[in-house]
C-alpha cells in the first residue's frame, strides 16, 4: 500500500470512527478498557475519596440541583470544590443521619476546621483552560437545557454514581467534536451556532 492510500484509509477510518462517536457524544463512556476514537480511556479509574460522597443520594434521590453545591461552576473558569460550610449548612440540621460514619467524618473535618483533601477526578493537562462558567451560561442559562444534562455533557450521569468517576474522554478531539456541532443559540430559537475553534481559547 503506498503512502497516499494509507493516509486516505486513515482519514476514512477516522471519519467513520468519529461519525459513530460524534453522532451521540453525550452517552456514557464504554466499559473499562475500551477506547474512544482518539485513543483515550473512555472510563477513568475508580478514585478513592476521603469521604465516599453519595452523588446518587444528593443529586439523584433528593434531586438537588448540581449548582446548589457546585456554586463556583457558573461564576468561574474552575468549578472548585464545594465549600465545607455548604455541607454543614444542611447537615447541621439533619439529625437523622448524624450517626452515620460518613457524616461523622464530615463533622470531624468541620470541627477541626480542616479542608477535605478530595482527589481530582476530572483533571485536564496544565496547558488547557476549560471555562465552566461559559459552558453553563451557554447551555443552562441561555439554551435552558436541564442542569443534569448540561453538566453531564462532560461529567456523565453523576447522579447515578456515589463518588464521581470520569466517563468521558475529555480529549481534544472529543472537545472539538462538540464544538463542531450546531447548538441552538438560545431556548426557543431556531438559530444555531457552533463552539469557537481558536487554539488560544483552550490552550493557555
Amino acid at each position, binding site marked *: 500500500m503506498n503512502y497516499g492510500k494509507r493516509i486516505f484509509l486513515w482519514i476514512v477510518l477516522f471519519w467513520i470512527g468519529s461519525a459513530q462517536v460524534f453522532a451521540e457524544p453525550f452517552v456514557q463512556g464504554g466499559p473499562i478498557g475500551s477506547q474512544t476514537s482518539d485513543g483515550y480511556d473512555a472510563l477513568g479509574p475508580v478514585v478513592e475519596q476521603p469521604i465516599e460522597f453519595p452523588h446518587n443520594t444528593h443529586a439523584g434521590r433528593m434531586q438537588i440541583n448540581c449548582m446548589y453545591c457546585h456554586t463556583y461552576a457558573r461564576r468561574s*473558569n474552575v468549578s472548585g470544590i464545594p465549600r465545607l460550610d455548604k455541607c454543614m449548612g444542611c447537615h447541621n440540621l439533619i439529625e437523622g443521619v448524624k450517626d452515620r460514619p460518613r457524616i461523622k467524618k464530615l463533622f470531624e473535618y468541620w470541627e477541626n476546621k480542616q479542608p477535605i483533601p478530595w482527589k481530582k477526578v476530572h483533571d485536564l493537562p*496544565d496547558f488547557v*483552560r476549560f*471555562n465552566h462558567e461559559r459552558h453553563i451560561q451557554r447551555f443552562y442559562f441561555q439554551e435552558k437545557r436541564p442542569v443534569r444534562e448540561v453538566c453531564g455533557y462532560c461529567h456523565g450521569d453523576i447522579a447515578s454514581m456515589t463518588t464521581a468517576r470520569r466517563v468521558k474522554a475529555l480529549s481534544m478531539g472529543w472537545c472539538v467534536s462538540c464544538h463542531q456541532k450546531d447548538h441552538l443559540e438560545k431556548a426557543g430559537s431556531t438559530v444555531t451556532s457552533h463552539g469557537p475553534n481558536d487554539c*488560544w*481559547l483552550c*490552550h*493557555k
Partner: protein
Amino acid sequence: MSLSNLIQNWNSFRTRRPYEGQYDDAPYKWAMVIDLDACIGCNACTVACYAENNLPVVGKERFGKGQAMHWIRIERYWGEGDAMTSEFPDHGAQYLPMLCQQCEAAPCEPVCPVGATHHSPDGLNTQVYNRCVGSRYCSANCPYKVRYFNWWNYPDRAWPNPLELQLNPDVTVRSKGVMEKCTFCMQRLRAGMDKAKTEGRILADGEVLTACAQACPTSAITFGNLADKKSKVARMWKNQQVDLAKDSQEKSEEGIRGYRILEELNTYPSIVYLERVRNLEA
C-alpha cells in the same frame, strides 16, 4: 505531513494579506501604541511581564548565550546610523521596548511545520506549547527576534521553592523544547472576553490591559481593541495615520509620529510606535 503543512501555510501566506475592513465585523482586534517620547526605559514593563507570564530567570551563563526569556525587552541605541556622530550621546539614549509585534502577515506562522503558531481571530500570533516540536523555524524567520526557545527545562530550576508559589495559574509553565513569545497577556484578555460574553457585551476600552501597559509609569503603552473604532488605540492609529492593512503609510503632513517597525518587510505589525521627540536646539 509537516512538509505539506509548510507548503500549505506558505501558499496561504503568499496569497492572504490583511485587507481593508478585515476586522470591521470582528468584535476584537488587539493592538498597541508605544510612545517612544514617553518611554523612559525604566524596565517596569519587563519586570511586570516576568511576574505575569511565568518567565524563567535563566542566570548569567545562559543569558550570555542569548537564552534570556524576556518577552519584552528594552533595546538601547546610541544612534540612528552605524556610528556615533558626536563624542557623546548629546540627545540622550534611544530606548525601544521590543516585544512581539503580533504581525498580521507574520513571518513566523507559515514556517511552522506543525501548525503550533497561527493567527487568532482577534489578530494575535498564537503559540500552542503542546503542539510545538521545537524546530525553531519561527524564531529564525522573525525579523524582530522576539521568540524565545526553552533550551532547558526551567521548571526544574528556575523557581526554587517557594518561588514557584508566585506562578500565575492562568499561564502554562513551559517545558524544555518549546518556543514561547509575548501573548499580549491573552490570559487576561480571555478572562475579560469570557466575562463580557456572559454579560452579553464586548469589552469596554481599557477594561483589560496587558501587564506591561498597566505597569508603565509614564503610560507610554496604550493597549486596546482596534476593531472598536471608539477605543483610544483605534483613535490613535487613525490620528497617527497608520493603516493596519497598508505596508507603507502616506501621511498628510510632516510631523506625524506614528510608524511601524520594519514595515517594509510587509509584516503588518499590530504595534504602532510614536517617534521619540527631542528638542534638538537645546
